[in-house]
């Protein structure tokens, strides 16, 4: 049934988008959690530099970011040279390169909700956990992470939705190769270019509904979390 709705190229494009968004969320969870924790708790002056760097992808035009990433990952860039030295294929124009670009481009969408929720924890709950014999790592997983649940959910959903809709960086880095680096958002652009408005509509409504459903779930679960942990007074 799905096969009759979408062309096989569209299905592959949707699958690439889905895979890209999921992997980006997972990688950013691993990467941003310690960095956001550091940004939320440090008194170091390096913090402002860290915050500005982490927010940079928010304001940079995707083409600027994509261009630098292309230079970086290309055969003559540092990244490309490193890949070559390690005996690996260059990342530009590959799914790996796309993933790398997404991780950089979507970082603020994970970092900021996490940092905000870590900051709003305050130190008291962690001090209490410490006097109850919990080691620093134990305190993080048993107190900080559950209390920052909203940050994790919001960050993951925003990252996922943002990666689904990513266009400029993908085009610059991935080069629109069907079956390999052509994501759903690029496929829509191709349909429009080819005056295939029906195809563009099908993919557009799919992305629209997917993103809306996701945000709906996030806000509903945030509301539940707020009610469950609310302390009167």
């Amino acid at each position, binding site marked *: 049934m799905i096969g009759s709705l979408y062309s096989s190229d569209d299905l592959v494009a949707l699958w690439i988008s889905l895979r890209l968004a999921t992997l980006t969320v997972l990688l950013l969870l691993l990467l941003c959690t310690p960095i956001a924790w550091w940004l939320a708790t440090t008194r170091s002056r390096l913090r402002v530099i860290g915050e500005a760097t982490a927010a940079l992808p928010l304001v940079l035009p995707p083409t600027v970011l994509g261009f630098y990433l292309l230079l970086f990952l290309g055969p003559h860039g540092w990244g490309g040279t490193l890949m070559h030295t390690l005996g690996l294929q260059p990342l530009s124009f590959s799914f790996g390169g796309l993933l790398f670009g997404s991780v950089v481009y979507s970082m603020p969408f994970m970092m900021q909700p996490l940092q905000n929720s870590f900051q709003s924890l305050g130190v008291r709950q962690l001090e*209490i956990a410490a006097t109850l014999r919990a080691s620093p790592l134990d305190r993080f997983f048993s107190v900080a992470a559950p209390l920052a649940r909203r940050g994790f959910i919001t960050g993951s959903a925003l990252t996922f939705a943002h990666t689904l809709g990513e266009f400029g960086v993908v085009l610059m880095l991935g080069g629109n190769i069907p079956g390999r680096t052509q994501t759903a958002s690029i496929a829509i652009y191709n349909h429009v270019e080819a005056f295939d408005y029906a195809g563009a509509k099908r993919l557009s409504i799919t992305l629209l509904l997917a993103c809306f459903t996701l945000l709906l779930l996030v806000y509903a679960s945030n509301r539940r979390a707020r009610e469950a942990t609310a302390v009167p007074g």
Partner: protein
Amino acid sequence: MSLQFDIDWARSDFQLQVACEFAGHGITGLFGRSGAGKTTVLRCIAGLEPGTHARVRFNDEVWQDSSKFVPAHRRPVGFVFQEADLFPHLDARANLQYGLKRVPAAQRRIVFEQAVEYMGLQGLLEHRAGQLSGGQRQRVAIARALLTSPALLLLDEPLSSLDLESRADILPYLERLHAELSIPMVYVSHEIGEVMRIADHLVLLEAGRVRAVGPVHELLTRPDLPLAHLDSAGSIFQGVIVEHDPRYHLSYLDIPGGRVAISRQAGGLGQPVRVRIDARDVSLALKPPELSSITNVLAGTVLDVTADRDPAQCLVRIAIGDRPLLARITQRSVAQLQIAPGLRLYAQIKSVALMD
């Protein structure tokens, strides 16, 4: 047990220099005004102030000095904070189990049911923090700290965030802990009433320094310390209920140096109790008074006579048995009765208040 510490803690607007040794048993009150440094001392003992220039030694174990810092989670200390902060993502039961689970079974000296019973938490275990009253939350927080089987329990003004009713509700629980468990406690407070009621020893902090250390009954009455000059100044005595008098609704207590009557108590004979006698409720006579409405008369010897803050008043300290009794009388009476150290006299006590 012994706890020695020497803290030298400086911030731009405040300096704390405290060297002290805490008694290894009973409740030590850490008393002082807001801003005297009480909480900082407690936090240093618990290991919540890394980077402080301090030496903390517990029994034979160094917890902190210039080369060593045992982090908070490795110190066998229970801490009860001012605001009863329970973990909001856990119910009362899971809050209680949080510390318990992290203590090796061999080191547990208090079981879950025992702590629940001590703090009267039956029926509250499935509630989350938001569904509990302030007093109930603080009782959960105290039980949670107890369940780590601490060698030392630190309480940082545990009643100050509660309304009067909840405070009165918690004190009996703390007194019961004191009576039934042998865990030494340090109790920070700026309410002299709480300290009089619950503490055995007292450390008096003033502007970041230790002003005095000693048994609470002694420090309360020492004329060179500010406590004896408070409006609510008084003395405390330890007594035992020896007789009930149903006809006049009285109970009699034996205290070292005499016997006093109080309003009839429910407590059984032989039960130890603590009573408080306000300095302004004591009058002095050279002969045993006759035909007086005052029932309680204790014989004693004057220790000293000191000027009070009000120039019309004097503080007279009288030894009753081995305990000091504080009386606030006018300077005129001191002159008329020629009250001086060494004089034998009779203290008439208008009211004796039971404290537990």
